[in-house]
């Protein structure tokens, strides 16, 4: 309601700026899910990887943050319980 509504940022810079969070967040997400314990783990026993897939699907369908977190953590706990 207050300040910089009329800031005229160069269009080229604005176009590139949109990539910053996409790139940075993805760079943070992927290794934390594929290598949660420091080494790369592509297998289906990597509970973080599976939880990540679940979270992506849940987000795609519902966009709900709390639900995504809860289902993701539930996936991890379920996998640890049944697959160890």
């Amino acid at each position: 309601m207050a300040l910089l509504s009329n800031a005229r940022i160069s269009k080229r810079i604005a176009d590139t700026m949109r990539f910053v969070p996409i790139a940075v967040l993805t760079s943070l997400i992927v290794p934390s899910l594929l290598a949660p314990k420091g080494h790369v783990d592509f297998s289906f026993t990597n509970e973080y990887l599976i939880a990540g897939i679940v979270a992506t699907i849940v987000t795609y369908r519902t966009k709900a943050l709390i639900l995504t977190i809860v289902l993701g953590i539930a996936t991890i706990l379920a996998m640890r319980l049944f697959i160890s």
Partner: protein
Amino acid sequence: MQMLSHHEASLQEFRLGLRAPLPLAIGVSSFGLAYGILAIQAGLSFLESTLMSLTVFAGAAQFVATGMLMSGAGALPILVTTFMINSRHFLMSASLAPYVGGWKLRWKALLSFLLADETYAITMSRFSKNAPSKYYQLGVGLNVYVVWLLSSIVGSALGPLVGKPQAWGLDFALPATFIVLVLPMLQNWRDVLVCITAGLLSIACFTWLPGKWYVTFASLVAIAFGWGLVELCKRRSSR
């Protein structure tokens, strides 16, 4: 129906506003709780994490900034990302503008600070059917703010007690939040390609580069790649 004095009407609006967000309180407080715990795990002191909730009051931004700090991202990417996450506030403020025209500047400033997704949703819904009241919005804003602040204080207090969050899979809350934020950002094929590039590069760099450099390196290359794609499309369309 008896006419209330201006003073009584304002108070009534305020009370209505104060009560309105209660159904959402569970969502807001669990988010606040998660933030508090995360902030402590990230190394912030109880005071620091509480101050952040007190002064910033922007859940997603606080969550992401803390997470990014923890993961070693630099100040600039954090600023840009926070800016983009909160850019929706510009839109929210713009759509509220028609209703707030006559209000004094200090009211606008206070209400701007208190603006949150939940506050916006409730206020817009109310103003579309009733006369806009700054007391109503103040009530809503205060409710959400206080719930957020209290729950993040509790979270910060619980933080040290949670022990190793990894044992309970709680460390997944962070990548989960990032996923929820990134997915809506992917609005065209260029965004998706940049995302895939960043993903592939980051895991490759994670293996080859020391420390947290993989984040910066993968991001920069992916951003440059995205910039290149934009340029390419411009050239093509100007032929």
